[in-house]
């Protein structure tokens, strides 16, 4: 049953992502991308990573994409769906990068022996302890970066 | 502190609304319970009669002139003994704004406002009231007043014999 669910979710995700890339209207593209994130969260859940699944939805679907949408609504884009398709020259770099990523994943997957999934569900506690002790420095660096963003926003938004 | 002041303000507001939840509603369930308006309430217009049973209206057109929305129209005619009356009298209640200017303008107290506020009709043409719809069989708010006792000289009684009217002066006499 888990395998069936995985294939359904994977199909939904791939189709939604392709539609998000080829869609001409940014708002429609966002809706497709959110669908894809949902499917991805489902896959994470199947892979015994419910925490990652929830963060996927909260952060990407619930915060990042919403902010994208906010910006698109604020800007008057006119009629983006009437614009032309990108020329071949514009497709080329994207195709090149995509091919690189695909090749890397294929290489890694070929070497993957198909380990058994961990028998026990990694709990929230183990997750948190690992995150804040083993990767503590990384967390601090990221939080500093966020602090810069906050200070920058306050500087730009201050009353003169 | 500001926070405490703000909290007090919000709680005071909540307390006020709480008291109103427990208070008796002022609503009147209209079709079952009806409010009795004051006698001076300005609603459906009537044409009254004088104590003798005659029509008070003398078709002077003052009400029609006073009406700000021009909803009153009539045609004057002269009856027996030179007494004036309206041949037809029409009020279009779909235009009437119940301002009461017509009743104020009327010199004979014929046109009066009543507290009957339930004038609704399915068809708008039914709101055009003719003289027979307007004319009532009583004197309205002023049961004593009879215009032709005070004026209407030479029509209903000889000159100088009305109520509060001085006898006519004999212009040919020498007495002061």
């Amino acid at each position: 049953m888990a395998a069936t669910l995985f294939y359904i979710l994977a199909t939904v995700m791939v189709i939604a992502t392709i539609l998000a890339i080829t869609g001409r209207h940014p708002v429609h593209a966002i809706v497709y991308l959110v669908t894809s994130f949902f499917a991805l969260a489902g896959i994470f859940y199947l892979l015994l990573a419910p925490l990652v699944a929830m963060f996927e939805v909260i952060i990407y679907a619930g915060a990042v994409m919403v902010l994208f949408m906010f910006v698109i609504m604020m800007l008057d884009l006119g009629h983006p769906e009437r614009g032309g398709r990108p020329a071949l020259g514009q497709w080329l770099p994207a195709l090149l990068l995509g091919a690189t990523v695909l090749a890397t994943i294929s290489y890694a997957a070929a070497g993957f022996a198909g380990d058994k999934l961990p028998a026990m569900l990694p709990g929230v506690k183990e997750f948190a302890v690992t995150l804040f002790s083993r990767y503590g420095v990384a967390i601090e660096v990221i939080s500093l970066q966020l602090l810069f963003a906050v200070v920058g926003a306050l500087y730009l938004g201050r009353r003169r | 502190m500001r926070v405490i002041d703000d909290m007090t303000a919000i709680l005071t507001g909540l307390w006020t609304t709480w008291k109103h939840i427990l208070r008796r509603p002022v609503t009147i369930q209209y079709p079952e319970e009806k409010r009795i308006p004051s006698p001076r309430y300005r609603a459906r217009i009537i044409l009254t009669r004088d104590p003798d049973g005659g029509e008070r209206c003398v078709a002077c057109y003052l009400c029609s002139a006073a009406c700000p929305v021009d909803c009153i129209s009539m045609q004057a005619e002269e009856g027996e003994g030179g007494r004036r009356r309206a041949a037809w009298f029409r009020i279009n209640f779909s235009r009437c704004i119940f301002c009461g200017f017509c009743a104020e303008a009327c010199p004979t107290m014929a046109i009066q406002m009543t507290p009957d506020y339930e004038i609704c009709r399915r068809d708008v043409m039914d709101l055009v009231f003719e003289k027979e719809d307007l004319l009532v069989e009583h004197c309205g708010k002023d049961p004593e007043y009879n215009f032709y006792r005070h004026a209407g000289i030479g029509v209903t009684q000889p000159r100088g014999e009305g109520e509060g009217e001085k006898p006519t002066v004999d212009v040919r006499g020498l007495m002061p």
Partner: protein
Amino acid sequence: MAGADVIPDPMEITLVIAKIGLVLLVILTLAAYLVFAERRILAWIQDRKGPNRVGPFGLLQPLADLIKLLTKEDFCPPAGDRWLFFLAPAMAAIPAIMTFAIVPFGAPVRIFGRDLPMQVADLHVGLLLFMALSSIAVYGVALGGWASNSKYALLGSLRGLAQLISYELSMGLSLVPTVMLARSFRLSDIVAAQEGGWFILYQPMAFAIFLVSILAECKRIPFDLPEAEGELVAGFHTEYSGMRFGLFFVGEYINILVLGGLAATFFLGGWQGPLLPGLLWFWGKVLAFAFLFIWIRGTLPRLRYDQLMHLGWKVLTPMALVNILATAWWLYLAGSSPL
């Protein structure tokens, strides 16, 4: 769940489906009657009587409203985005209903020789699922307003977006101390942790922040800027009619019930309480929250946009952060921290 190639026995499935059906029925009925209750209570606050014509005491009013909404024209503005316009109301209402899956609404019951938890799904990331679903609910507001192709609707949905993002932050942060005290994201654990004392006693500040944030999340007065009828006609659902408007409308009331239930679960001990059975305690708390929301609606005026942002970002969020730090220190000093 992965590796779940074991087929659960049919009795289990039947019970789960029965639970889902029951919860849906109760939630939708309660939401419909909450609309009625709100109209009556607001009327009492304003010294009126409220709807009392349909049925005894007006109790059939929700049915009349439903018939009215169903028989109205389902209209889409010609210049609007048809597909998203029709999708948006569902996107607003469904996350609200789904959130109730994780709320424990009663003490576990022994039925047919097995323990039946009064909860549809006891996820061990339950609290995070709530956050995820509440962040998804934003899309209904945003897409509904955008797809209408109307100035009022777009302004309403822009405000809605900004407001929901801002208050989700303080809502999430105010729940962190709860998780620290209960040491679990699982809602049944959070309820069980409050057996000795409700979390509102330990975390009054977090409760206050959470209450204000959920008021903003439901887009209720004093935070009803997205639909501010005085300025924006009806805000993001200006162009909606018929049952699509009804979905937005009922979604708001389902949201009140769900957030009330969650507030009860996180801070008021969930279904726990002396003497009375758990079901009664839980629904009593939910209805008390619903009444509080209606009462507040009858009392307070609407905030200005800058006041809204000020309250969210400069008051509630820093307060929640300080509260988290204080709770962490307290737990550390009490010697009950895992570190």
